């Protein structure tokens, strides 16, 4: 019976541990690099994240979320914890990683994931200025006050748009999920 990589890790398959790294390594690196804006910090974060992913594999339930969502959620928790301890360093240094050399199979499997496709569709449907604020906050790790300064808009507007954006996307994703399940709640 086909099982996910994380189920294989949980079952003690040592080769699956490395396969998780092959499949999701570049993605987790991209998330960390963008969110923390600092390569050495991102490298330490990626190591923490993979150790957490491997040790949490037995908690993964494929009926509740896809593997990539499970890993991205662990990554997000770790990245937020790290950012709270060390404030964000601006993206000033040169990117030293190779460009466009990601494993194409890995990229395709992520972009073809239904949950990822749904969230990309909802993001594309949002007004660009709302998406930009959400991106600066959720993707790039800027604080609300940094975003307000950067975009020269009131702090309250930033807080409201980030909060409403998150709620809106959650509602849209739940709606799509219900429709995909034939309208069952």
């Amino acid at each position, binding site marked *: 019976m086909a099982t996910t990589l994380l189920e294989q890790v949980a079952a003690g398959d*040592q080769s699956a*541990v*490395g396969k*998780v*790294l092959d499949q999701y*390594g*570049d*993605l987790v*690196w*991209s*998330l960390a*690099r*963008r*969110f923390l804006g600092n390569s050495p910090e991102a*490298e330490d974060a*990626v*190591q923490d994240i*993979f150790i957490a992913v491997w040790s949490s594999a037995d908690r993964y339930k494929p009926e509740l*979320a896809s593997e*990539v*969502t499970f890993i*991205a*959620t662990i*990554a*997000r928790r770790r990245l*937020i*914890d790290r*950012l*709270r301890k060390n404030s964000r360093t601006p993206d000033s240094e040169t*990117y*030293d*990683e*190779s*460009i*466009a*050399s*990601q494993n194409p199979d890995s*990229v395709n499997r*992520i*972009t073809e994931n239904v*949950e*990822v496709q749904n*969230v*990309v569709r*909802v*993001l*594309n449907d949002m007004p660009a200025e709302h998406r930009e604020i*959400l*991106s600066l906050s*959720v*993707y790039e790790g800027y*604080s609300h006050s940094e975003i307000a300064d950067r975009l020269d808009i009131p702090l309250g507007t930033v807080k409201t748009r*980030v*909060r409403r*954006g*998150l*709620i809106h*996307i*959650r509602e849209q*994703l739940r709606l799509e999920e219900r429709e995909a399940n034939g309208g069952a709640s």
Partner: protein
Amino acid sequence: MSKQRKSDRARLEELLIEQAINGLSDAQQAELDYLDGSTHHENPYMETAALIQLGLAVMDQSAHGASAMPSALRSRLQRLSTGN
């Protein structure tokens, strides 16, 4: 539902959203634990925020190209994954 329970529920939701976006201070975390009656929270907003982060990464990479993990980091993680 009483006014108090309604306001507790609204505050709980506010804290869950804050946790998913910026994380919580120790005081906020203690308040969340108290309102939720547990220290082990399932936070649905965290998964949504992670999906948004993922979606924005995919959009960014399709517009600007993808970046791969530095080889030294990959080697370090491979050694960790095999326990060597």
